[in-house]
């Protein structure tokens, strides 16, 4: 298990905003993740949450993603999960949410997602 430090960073790309997450998303900082995702959606662009370096996510982390997904839909914005790690995918499948989210491999695919 690769142990990344918990990290959230937002960057602007060509026609999208990308929120990069790393580490283990749990109750200790999922509120921080939630705020970053909602802030990105405020920017009226396609939003992606990059999860390749996320080795763990709990229901509070998933809830932050769900809230982002619903907020983006309310604004008519695109929202997708990017480069989802196996650990995150397993939890999405367990929560039956793997078909709810749009999953893309790279941020380049975001504007078309």
């Amino acid at each position: 298990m690769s142990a990344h430090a918990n990290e959230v960073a937002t960057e602007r790309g060509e026609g999208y905003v990308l929120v990069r997450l790393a580490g283990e998303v749990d109750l200790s900082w999922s509120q921080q993740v939630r705020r970053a995702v909602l802030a990105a959606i405020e920017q009226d662009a396609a939003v992606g949450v990059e999860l390749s370096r996320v080795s763990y996510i709990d229901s509070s982390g998933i809830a932050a993603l769900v809230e982002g997904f619903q907020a983006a839909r309310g604004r008519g914005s695109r929202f997708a999960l990017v480069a989802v790690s196996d650990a995150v995918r397993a939890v999405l499948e367990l929560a039956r949410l793997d078909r709810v989210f749009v999953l893309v491999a790279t941020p380049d695919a975001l504007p078309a997602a």
Partner: protein
Amino acid sequence: MIRSSARPLPPPSVAPAPARMREADTLAFLAELSQALAVSLDLRQTLSETVRRVAEFMQVEGAALFLLGEGSDGDARSAGVLECRVCVGPVDITGARLAVGQGVVGRAEAENATQVVVDAANDARVWREGDDATGFVTTSLVCAPLATANGPIGALEIVNRRDGRAFTDADAELLGLVAAPAALAINNARMARDLIEQQRLKREFDLARRMQRSLLPRRRRDGFPVTGVNRPAHEISGDFYDYFELADGRVGFVVGDVSGKGLDAALLMVRTASLLRWAGKDGLAPGAWLARANEELCETAQEGRFVCALVGYCDRAGTHVTFAGAGFPPVVVERRGAFSEFGSGGPPLGILPGMVFDQHAIALEGGTLYAFSDGATDVRDASGQPIGGAGVRELIARHARASLDARVRGLLDDLKRLRLVDDTTLLIVEAPRAAAPDVLLARSVPAKAEELRGLRAALRGSLDELGLDPLLRDRLVLAVDEACSNIIRHAYGADGGGSIGLQLARCGPWLRFELTDSAPCSDLARMKPKPLGDCRCGGMGLALIDEVMDDWRLERGAGGRGNRLVLSKRIDEIDEGNE
């Protein structure tokens, strides 16, 4: 060469040793006979061979071999009696019996000396009824005793020389020479026969022991409330135990001890074990259960045989026990170091019909019921005294705090060290404990979200040691983490403080995750998992726990304070070898 000095009449004509008795021939004959007898381990064949060869070489009309009864073949009459086992000649006297001292044969045996009868018609030693019964006329005879280092075993007799002459000293000497290897061969054949018999008996005993052991139920490790163990003092045990589940969820148990040892006790044990199982499966109250078995055994059991037994039921959780004893040693119940004893409810089974058996109904209250067959109280201490009930209680107290496995091992080892003088059987009834040695992880952390990462890592490590599939491992970690998050968020809430205790234990095929907190008691009614796949927030943690675990339950904490959440997952697919 011992010869009888009692020779009342001299031979009528003293002929020189005939040519047929040449020394070279005699030596050749003896050598040949010895060789033939040396390779023969079959008693009957050894006997016939001896008699046939002697009759042929010595040119006589008849020859017979008598053996002294061993009294061991079930025929008491044979003891101390000489019986003709094989003969050649015109009349068959096989089966003829003579007392030691009776007739020439009996005298040869009694005096351990060769007897020569030159003129049978006028010799007082001759037993005449033989001739009277058969019509055979004995004119002259020689009889040599057969003896081994352990004493006389029989006699070899030759009757009437074919040339019509009377037997001579030379004939007597020759017969005496034949008798030695014949006696040796007979002895060897008997020892071989005994050895084969012993091997046959051993095979049968092995079979009986295997059969007996196969009747004992297998040890159950799935949190079953009854455990039995038997350590036989002999190859074959008269003790037995059994347990089974009834359709109504109760568990029936039986432990018994058949009087006596050996094969017939073992056979009665087999019969009683199936009888008690059959009666117990009807769900009869323990007293009636014993009464029914008693009636049946009284009708059929052999005189002097009886069965001590204890029968009863407990609930699957091992909290309440109903039992009745029949001549069984007192049942000992240990509760946190305090002992109570419950005496037998009636006499042993199989003695008197119409008996009534009193039963006890007790709540174990976390205690343990021990039923030892009387073998345990018979165990001797260092000074050779039976340890008795007090010794057994001391033994239990010494091991009471150990896990079930360790306790059973410890009790048996102690009994063994104290010299087992009887079969020992032990039956234990108790609520299945989360066995101490199976605890894989025990942690207590402050109820803070920042602690969760470390807790997850520790849990992951413990599950990896079990050789769990990584996908299942991650799901279990997620479920436990969700439960911890709920405790932090909902149980402690804004007040914070407090701690979370996590214990991971393996109990048979079950993994149990026990989470304890000191928060105000949670209201179970308010805890509702929402369906998975539902995008609305809240309730997802519980839904994930529901999905991952096979079972979970929330209880008040110890002493009514806090909460205790137990999550269970069955993992029987793990290969034991990975542990």
